[in-house]
C-alpha cells in the first residue's frame, strides 16, 4: 500500500537524520534568497521556492581543494584531501529539474577519468525529489524531456497531496533503505490524491531535430543575432544544474598553499585563451554558440543525453535577457 508522509513528519525525518549525524542539504532561506544549504533542523526546509542556485553544488561545489602543499626544511609535502571524510548526505526537497542533473553529469565525470570528488559524493548522497506544483514563465522542463513529476535522479520521491503532506515512493535501494530506517514516520494509506502539477506552458522542442540543425550550422548568422548582446559573464553557467566546467588554480604562498578546482564558464572571454594569446573563440557569439552546442549536440553525440533540464535559471538571471528557450524555439523552427 502507498505510504504517505505529513509535512510535520518530513521535518521530523530531517531532524532524525541530523541526529544520526547525516548531513542534510535542502532548500533554505538565507537572507533574501533561497539556496540549497545544510539544514540544522527540519523546519528550515523551504519547499515553496526553487533555489537560486541548482543542486549540482552538492556534488560539484563552487570551489574545492584537490591537494595542498607545504614546504618545510627544504622539503615539499603534498597531500590529497581525505575523501573518506566526505559525509553521508541526504539531499532533500529537490525538484525534478535539479534531481535529474547529477545523473546526467555522471556520464562526463566517469568518462575518460573517474572524478573521485564528484563520484564519491554521488555514492554517499541520497536524493529525495519532490514533484513540482508551481512554475513560472521561465520554466521549460517539459520541452527537454522531463515532467514536473519526473522521477529521474531521485532515490525517494515525494508527491504533494491534497490536504497537505506527500505520497512517498522509493525508487531504488538507497531510497528504500532510508524509508525502512525511518519507517515509523511513514503512514500507510491517507489521502494520496496529488496536487495539480506545474506544467510549464511552453512550445515543445524536437531535440533530435535541433541536434541535427546544430550539426550543420556551426557557422550561421543566428549566433551573432542572438549573442552579440551577451555580456560574457558566468551567471547562466553558474546557476545551471548541468554546466560543469571548472578551472584549476594554485592559491597560497611560497611556503604553503592549495590547488583548487572552481567553477568556470564558456561565456568568459578568457575561457579558451591559449598561453600563446591566441583565442579560438575570440568573440562573444562564438562563446554563446558553444553553450548551445555543448548542451544540445556535443553531449548528445557523446553520451546520448541533453545537458539541460529546463529549470529556467539562466533565463531568469541573464543580465541581458537572453532566453535559451526562445533560442531553441528559433532553432526548432529552422530545422
Amino acid at each position, binding site marked *: 500500500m502507498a505510504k504517505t508522509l505529513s509535512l510535520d513528519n518530513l521535518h521530523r525525518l530531517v531532524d532524525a537524520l541530523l541526529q544520526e549525524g547525516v548531513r542534510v542539504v535542502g532548500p533554505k532561506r538565507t*537572507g533574501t534568497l533561497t539556496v540549497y544549504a545544510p539544514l540544522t533542523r527540519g523546519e528550515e526546509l523551504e519547499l515553496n521556492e526553487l533555489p537560486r542556485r541548482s543542486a549540482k553544488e552538492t556534488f560539484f561545489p563552487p570551489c574545492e581543494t584537490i591537494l595542498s602543499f607545504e614546504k618545510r626544511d627544504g622539503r615539499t609535502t603534498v597531500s590529497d584531501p581525505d575523501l573518506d571524510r566526505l559525509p553521508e548526505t541526504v539531499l532533500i526537497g529537490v525538484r525534478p529539474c535539479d534531481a535529474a542533473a547529477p545523473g546526467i553529469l555522471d556520464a562526463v565525470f566517469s568518462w575518460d577519468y573517474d572524478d573521485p570528488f564528484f563520484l564519491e559524493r554521488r555514492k554517499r548522497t541520497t536524493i529525495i525529489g519532490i514533484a513540482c506544483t*508551481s512554475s*513560472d514563465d521561465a520554466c521549460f522542463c517539459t520541452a527537454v524531456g522531463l515532467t514536473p513529476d519526473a522521477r529521474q535522479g531521485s532515490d525517494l520521491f515525494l508527491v504533494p497531496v491534497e490536504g497537505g503532506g506527500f505520497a512517498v515512493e522509493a525508487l531504488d535501494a538507497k531510497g528504500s533503505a532510508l524509508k525502512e530506517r525511518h519507517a515509523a514516520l511513514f503512514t500507510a494509506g491517507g489521502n494520496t490524491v496529488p496536487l495539480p502539477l506545474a506544467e510549464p506552458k511552453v512550445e515543445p522542442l524536437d531535440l533530435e531535430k535541433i541536434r541535427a540543425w546544430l550539426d550543420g550550422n556551426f557557422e550561421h548568422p543566428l549566433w551573432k543575432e542572438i549573442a552579440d*548582446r551577451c555580456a560574457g*559573464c558566468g551567471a547562466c553557467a*553558474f546557476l545551471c544544474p548541468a554546466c560543469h566546467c571548472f578551472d584549476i588554480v594554485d592559491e597560497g604562498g611560497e611556503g604553503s598553499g592549495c590547488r583548487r578546482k*572552481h567553477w568556470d564558464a564558456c561565456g568568459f572571454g578568457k575561457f579558451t585563451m591559449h598561453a600563446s594569446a591566441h583565442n579560438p573563440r575570440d568573440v562573444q557569439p562564438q562563446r554563446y554558440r558553444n553553450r548551445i552546442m555543448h548542451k544540445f549536440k556535443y553531449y548528445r553525440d557523446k553520451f546520448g543525453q541533453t545537458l539541460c533540464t529546463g529549470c529556467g535559471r539562466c533565463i531568469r538571471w541573464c543580465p*541581458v*535577457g537572453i532566453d535559451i528557450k526562445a533560442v531553441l*524555439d528559433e532553432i526548432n523552427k529552422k530545422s
Partner: protein
Amino acid sequence: MTQGQQTESTPLVDPACYAAATAAIRAEAVRLLEAGEVTAVVGYRAGRRAGSAMPEVATTAEAAAQLIFTPGCQNNLALFLSKAKREALPKGKVAVVVKGCDLRALAGLIGESQLKRDEVHVIGVACPGVYGAGADLAKPLAAESLARKCRECKVHLPEGTDVVAGTLPPLPDLAPLEAEELARLEAMTPQERWAFWTEQFARCIRCLACRQVCPFCFCTQCLCDRNRPQAVDTSPRPAGNTAWHIVRAMHLAGRCAGCAECERVCPMDIPLNLLNRKMAQELFELYGFETTMQPQEQGALTSYRDGDDQSFIK
C-alpha cells in the same frame, strides 16, 4: 513558482508614458537608419516572456520599428559603446537609447576618451523608472517592484541628448530605501560593517556579471583575471571575493555613474550599489566631484588641485 517578491499594488506610472516613449524611439530610429545617419541603433526589444526586454542592435528600419521602452528596459546600453562590447556594433556612427542614469555613464565614457560625442547619436528617454532585480515582469510596475535606484532618481529627464523620447508623468514620492540602508551601515561600528560585508561577499560565486555589465569595466586585461603574477585569488572564497569587490569599488570610484546594473544582475543579491554610493559620497565630500550627464574633462582621481584634502596622508 513566482521568483519575484512583488506584492499586488496599484500601478505606479500610467503605461501610456512608456507607449509614448516607445513610439518616439521607433520614429527616431527608423528615420536615422533610413536616412543613413547611423549604421545601428542600440535600443531594447521585447523578449519572449511577458514584460521582459533585452538589448537590441537594430541595423534595419524593420528592426528599429520593433524597439520598445517599457519598465523591463533595465539594461544600461552605454555598455555597448565601451571597448568591451564595441565588437557587437557595426562600424560608423551609431545611435543609442539612454535613460538618465545610462547617460551619466555615456558621459563618463566620453570624459575618459573612450568615444567622441559626435560618434554617437544619443536618444534620451524620459524615464519614470524600471523594474528592480527579481521583479515579476508580467505585473505592472509598482512601488515594490521599482528598482531601488529609481526611487531616488534625479535624472528622470536626460539633458544634452540629440533628442528626448517621451515626456515625464507626475511621479510619486517614495522613501529613499537605498539612502536609508547606507545610513544604517554608516551608523555601524567598523566591526559590524566588516561583518555585514563579509557575509555579503561570502555568497559571491564569481560569475563576474557585475563586471561584465559595467560600462566602466572595459580593461582589456582585468587585474582580477591575471595569473602571472596573480593579484587576486580567482576561486570563490572569502579572500578572493573580498579582494575582488574592494578592487571593483575602488577602481570605479569617481567613475561609477550609479546605474546600479552591477547590483541588479548579481544572482546572489549582493547590494553592490551601496559600495558605489559610498564611494560617490566620499568623492563629493572630499573633492566636490559628482558624475553628471555632461562629459567632464577630468575625473576627481585623475586631477590635482592645491586645495585638495590631504588629511588621509599620514
